[in-house]
């Protein structure tokens, strides 16, 4: 069986979080197919990087280590990946839906003349019957993603132009170490033998990577508000509760669009995907665009005037009422009851 392949990104000299998620997702697909998992990583000073990749169950790892490969630039990374994928001929290739992955994957898909599905949130293996050919195709990648502003989920397949490629959203796939001592075959690629001067015509003059300061992903408790919060000022109610619970404040796209809260706190399909221990949704109706980014929270409390708000269907507690009344009461009773 042909392999499942993952392109690994390097961030601060380590394998990026998203790439670790992809390795795990890729391993699960590979196991379903009975296929090997392979990966590639390009960068500078990658000595020992395999120790961060092997434990996810990688059978073969291609490493190109050269100062010219860091920071990421499209053309050299695309040329290296193209050469490897052309030779290895995998069945499935996964990239992060990141600034890097979304820049690289489409260029590669064009080179390989294959299909690419963007921003997937669910990956699976399945079959498809093509009526026109009267033929059943087995073991295809199901690349499932929210579409049309998040109002539907679409299952995208590709049976005739391989490999099947997808970018995967950050934070949606669970990381899973298979074996700390997993045996990986390492193949070192000499970048200079593959690349020419033409691959380096774009130059990075300056780079500022900002720590965004907001860490929604890591926060165990999130208090999020929607359009129903009503104003920027009313978000203080949410902030007060988040502060006292030791959580972060987030918002739906509608709340961000209305200017109630900063863009970098947006949760949902076009914002951050979170899976906290507790998610408090205040004045959020629950469009798919939003729930796609928070439905894996361990516990969900919905506070809404509308007893039929769609989000109530996935909530553990549904409080029907005004958030201006409910939130201060929650603070009050938390203070009274917490030790």
């Amino acid at each position, binding site marked *: 069986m042909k392999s499942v392949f993952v392109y690994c990104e390097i961030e601060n000299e380590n394998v990026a979080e998203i790439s670790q998620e992809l390795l795990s997702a890729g391993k699960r697909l590979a196991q379903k197919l009975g296929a090997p998992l392979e990966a590639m990583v390009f960068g500078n000073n990658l000595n020992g990087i395999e120790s961060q990749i092997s434990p996810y169950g990688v059978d073969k790892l291609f490493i190109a280590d050269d100062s010219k490969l860091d*920071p990421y630039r*499209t053309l050299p990374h*695309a040329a290296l990946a193209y050469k490897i994928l052309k030779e290895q001929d995998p069945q499935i290739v996964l990239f992060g839906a990141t*600034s890097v992955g*979304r*820049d690289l*994957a*489409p*260029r590669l898909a*064009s080179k390989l*003349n294959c*299909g*690419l599905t*963007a921003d997937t949130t669910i990956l699976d293996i399945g079959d*498809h019957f093509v009526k026109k050919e009267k033929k059943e195709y087995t073991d295809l990648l199901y690349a499932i993603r929210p*579409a*049309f*502003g998040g*109002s*539907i*989920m*679409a*299952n*995208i*397949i*590709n049976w005739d*132009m391989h490999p099947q490629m997808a970018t995967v959203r950050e934070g949606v796939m669970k990381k899973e170490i298979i074996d700390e001592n997993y045996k990986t075959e390492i193949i070192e690629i000499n970048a200079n033998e593959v690349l020419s001067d033409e691959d380096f*015509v*774009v130059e*990075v*003059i*300056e*780079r500022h990577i*900002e720590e*965004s300061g907001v860490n929604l992903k890591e926060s165990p*408790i999130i208090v999020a508000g929607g359009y129903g919060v009503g104003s920027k000022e009313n978000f203080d109610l949410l902030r007060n509760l988040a502060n006292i619970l030791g959580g972060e404040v987030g918002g739906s796209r509608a709340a961000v669009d209305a200017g109630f809260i900063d863009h970098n706190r947006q949760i949902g399909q*076009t914002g951050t995907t979170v899976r906290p221990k*507790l998610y408090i949704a205040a004045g959020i109706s629950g469009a*798919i665009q939003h729930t*796609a980014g928070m439905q894996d929270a361990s*516990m*969900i409390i919905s506070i809404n005037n509308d*007893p039929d708000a769609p989000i109530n*269907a*996935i*909530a*553990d*507690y549904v*409080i*029907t009422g*005004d958030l201006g*009344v409910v939130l201060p*009461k*929650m603070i009050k*009773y*938390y203070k*009274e*009851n*917490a*030790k």
Partner: protein
Amino acid sequence: MRPLKIIVLAKQVPDTRHVGPDAMKPDGTVNRGKLSTVFNPDDLHALELALNIKDRIPGTKVTILTMGPQKAADIIREGYYRGVDDGIMISDRRFGGADTLATSYTIVQGIKKIADYDLIVGGRQAIDGDTAQVGPQCADKLNIPQVTYVEEILDFNDTQIIARRRLSKGVETVSSPFPCLMTVHGSSPECRSRIAKNVMRYKYARTKTEMRKGDPVLEKLHKKRPHLVIPEWSVEDIDADINKIGLAGSPTKVKSVSSIVLTANESKVLTDSDSDIEGMIKELIKHHTIG
């Protein structure tokens, strides 16, 4: 600085930002008829970026290129109203059903017919798919560098252009030689408004197909003012391989769509009364969810 030749790629899209309850049919498919169409927001940013360069380098020529059904001629007119020099429409039923690979092939065939360009700009992504794929795929097919997520053009000279890119976790300044393709991020400046003089000049601009029902007044006007005829390119005009366009040229196919049904939890329904809320807080503390 020599004048540049810039091509703006723009798309007409259903307005997915304002999806009402009637936008979905009962079977879970999208009711396109209920969605209005708009100029793809990121593409308006790309248009502004091009027009801004035109302001800075006299003699620069901006051509807007769109692919879509007849209705998409609105995009060309909108481009004229805001200041482009030329507009070209790629339109043919046979292009329908294209995914990003087939779309990029088609657009590149159009660009090759235009032939002479220094810079191609388009929005980072279109709101009907949010894929951000067509730009890089066009750059690959033209064998030119790509600079994605551009926020601002900082400088240029006769041979290269310097831009700031907006990344999800920071910014980066890069230089690229001409010709190159840039995709423009929504954090770049908003597009300028229509210019009244241009609206007067171009409001009767039409494609041949739009004219086919016959309007003697417009026909006469078009004879007198040939700039009002929007060029319209078919499969044959751009010499496209029929196997690489439309559905046939698209590797990705939609197997199924489902409107998302939220999996019902057993939820406890509470009121905003003191006793209900205190009860809930106590349960959360007891289960170590909070506290």
